[in-house]
């Protein structure tokens, strides 16, 4: 058979099908589907017997009526999320302290002694131990415990069947923003870790809506940023209100920032779906699955392997070179000042317009691997820059203090005000994703363009928000 003839025959088949299709009429497709349903229903009738009442599902229905109700749905969701976060933050404190006691307080000096005893050059020891090792130790001790608690808890909620209800509740909000209802799921996952949230956006079929979910995931305040929020709120917000309500006020401020993140998520989704990612929200059917008792051990295992270790590994890979950079900028001197101090002096005038300072800008640039090391880097740079003596652990060595009061005094000495605190909280919400997330976005989208947009869009928003906050502040305060 020559190829031309074959092609002709194929086209003949297709055109025959076209002709017959017209004869079959408009409702042809429906009748085909109906015939499938009819057969399915007949077979089911023959083989299925329902004895007595419907049993457990009536219970499911009752629960659903509560958790997806108009009035209780949202409050219950926030309570559930709040409980998960409280367990994460409270539960992570102890193991975090243990890890940090071992890796930072014990092993770090041991390594330093070892380096000294083999007469390693000071700069090499600095780069390797104070830079690379310490940064890795920080990331592990601050990141591992909360993730090891948050992800299993989240996965348990998933296994139980609660997550589809969250998507169900949030669906109309996201739909109005031109996004996919399942974005609620990737958004919630982002509260744990944005990199995991970006991966979770895979559940969204439509590429347009999936991109929106990926780009806006960074507006979910991740685990790495909660401690920053809590610390800064305690120092700056808590101190301007009477002591009795200080805790409540700072907690309220943190929740406000988190909710602001959700608002930004919706607004930016809306903006994207009206501009570069134009389109209608696609309809999807989401079956509410039955509630099932979660399998605890298996859940812990899979969430550890699939999420915790995966994300932690990526963070470590990025933290090591960043630690080296952090040490180098604090220790390489040009003239009298280190590179870090040059940058801080140079960027200060610019940063002050936004109510921030050069230290914060530099910290956010060099601590890009993980939001967890932003505060230690800020403290180190502040001490370095303001020449405080008797504080900290030496130039280029990140540290954190046990007492909030000591941290506060360093920051006040660095020229921080309530406005700086507020702006740092806003900027911590609205800035570029960490490098782990950026890399994940690239992996998921396979596009430099969207990775760049996801990276810089939040920075621009953050600078704009800080700018207006600062200007309005000055207008009011005169």
């Amino acid at each position, binding site marked *: 058979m020559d190829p031309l003839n*074959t092609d002709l*025959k*194929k*086209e003949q*088949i*297709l055109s*025959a*099908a*076209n002709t*017959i*299709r017209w*004869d*079959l009429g408009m409702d042809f*497709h429906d*009748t*085909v589907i*109906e*015939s*499938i*349903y*009819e*057969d*399915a229903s007949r*077979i*089911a009738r*023959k*083989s*299925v*017997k*329902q*004895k*007595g009442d*419907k*049993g*457990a*599902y009536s219970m499911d229905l009752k629960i659903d009526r509560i958790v997806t109700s108009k009035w209780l749905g949202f409050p219950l969701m926030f309570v559930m999320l709040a409980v998960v976060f409280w367990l994460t933050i409270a539960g992570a404190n102890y193991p975090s302290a243990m890890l940090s006691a071992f890796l930072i307080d014990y092993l770090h000096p041991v390594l330093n002694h070892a380096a000294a005893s083999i007469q390693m050059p000071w700069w090499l020891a600095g780069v390797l131990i104070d830079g690379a090792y310490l940064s890795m130790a920080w990331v592990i001790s601050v990141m591992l415990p909360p993730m090891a608690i948050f992800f299993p808890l989240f996965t348990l909620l*998933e*296994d139980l*069947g609660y*997550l*589809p209800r969250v998507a169900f509740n949030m669906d109309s909000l996201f739909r109005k923003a031109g996004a996919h209802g*399942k974005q609620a799921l990737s958004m919630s996952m982002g509260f744990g870790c944005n990199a995991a949230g970006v991966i979770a956006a*895979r*559940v969204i*079929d439509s*590429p347009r809506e*999936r991109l929106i979910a990926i780009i806006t995931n960074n507006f979910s305040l991740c685990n790495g940023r909660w401690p920053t929020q809590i610390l800064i709120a305690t120092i700056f917000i808590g101190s301007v209100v009477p002591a009795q309500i200080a805790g409540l006020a700072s907690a309220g401020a943190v929740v406000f920032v988190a909710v602001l993140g959700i608002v930004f998520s919706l607004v930016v989704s809306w903006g994207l779906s009206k501009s570069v990612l134009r389109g209608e929200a696609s309809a999807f*059917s*989401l*079956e509410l*699955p*039955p509630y*099932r008792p*979660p*399998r605890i051990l298996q859940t812990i295992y*899979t969430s550890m*392997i*699939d999420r915790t270790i995966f994300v932690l590994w990526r963070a470590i890979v990025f933290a090591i070179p960043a630690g080296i950079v952090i040490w180098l900028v604090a220790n390489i001197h040009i003239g009298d000042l280190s590179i870090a101090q040059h940058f801080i002096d140079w960027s200060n005038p610019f940063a002050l317009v936004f109510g921030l300072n050069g230290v914060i800008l530099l910290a956010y640039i060099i601590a890009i691997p993980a939001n967890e090391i932003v505060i230690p880097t800020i403290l180190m740079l502040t001490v370095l820059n303001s020449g405080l003596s008797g504080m900290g652990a030496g130039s280029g060595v990140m540290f954190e203090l046990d007492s909030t009061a000591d941290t506060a005094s360093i920051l006040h000495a660095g020229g921080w005000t309530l406005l700086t605190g507020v702006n740092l909280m806003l900027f911590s919400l609205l800035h570029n994703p960490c490098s782990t997330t950026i890399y994940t976005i690239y992996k998921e*989208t*396979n596009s430099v363009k969207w990775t760049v947009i996801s990276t810089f869009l939040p920075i621009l928003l953050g600078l704009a928000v800080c700018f207006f906050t600062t200007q309005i502040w000055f207008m009011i305060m005169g």
Partner: protein
Amino acid sequence: MSPMNNCETCPVHNKANLIKLGLNMEQVDFVVAMAGNPNTGKSTVFNNLTGLRQHTGNWPGKTVSRAEGGYVYNEKRYKVVDLPGTYSLLSTSTDEEVARNFILFGQPDVTVIVVDATRLERNLNLTLQILEITDRAVLCLNLMDEAQRNNIEIDERTLSKELGIPVIPSAARRKQGMNELLNAIEEVATGKFVCRPHRIKSRSSKINHAIAEIAAKLEAQFPGLPNTNWVALRLLEGDNSIIEAVRSGELGHINASESGKINTGVLTIDA
């Protein structure tokens, strides 16, 4: 489910016959596809067979890309492909396209259809659509424990006779029914069990006539095509990806003798 411990002598229960291969899938003898509605426990069954720990979760749409694993049973090597869960195979979404293309072009030796025993009627819609495409399938009647809790009784024999394929009740989360499933897969793969899959009966004679007409033409052009009637119906419905497959001749690569060995590029859905 009937008590299982009184048939220890039966070869079905000889666990030693199973070696979970995880990701090691070289030189497979048979390819098994796992299909089914979302949230019926496909990934759980998949994990039980392959020893892998593909993430499972109680919500629809968990498996977003194709997962693959392998096992050895009675000295034969099997590759298992966990397809995304779908409600139909009409190809209205990426998931449906991935699942359908694999069953159609990937030509698995056996397709395991995992269904939710508590929602059998709805799940049968997909089952019947799969049986239109492939001849060799096993129905895994999963979540039997939930069905029991809800006082639902299913007559497996009637169901098996109606569908023309083996029906295996299971509770994958408790690892129940997995050995029976392995055995059924083997029987279908080796041809010990010959499936006589249910074909849609309630179509009008007019439609049947139209299908026959196109099918005859297809048969002439693509001899050996195992599911001419289904392809004819899709052409009549104006299904673009099938029209494209006819035009490109991709359809011609499908025939019974080469089953399971074709590696088409249609399955990558990385965005």
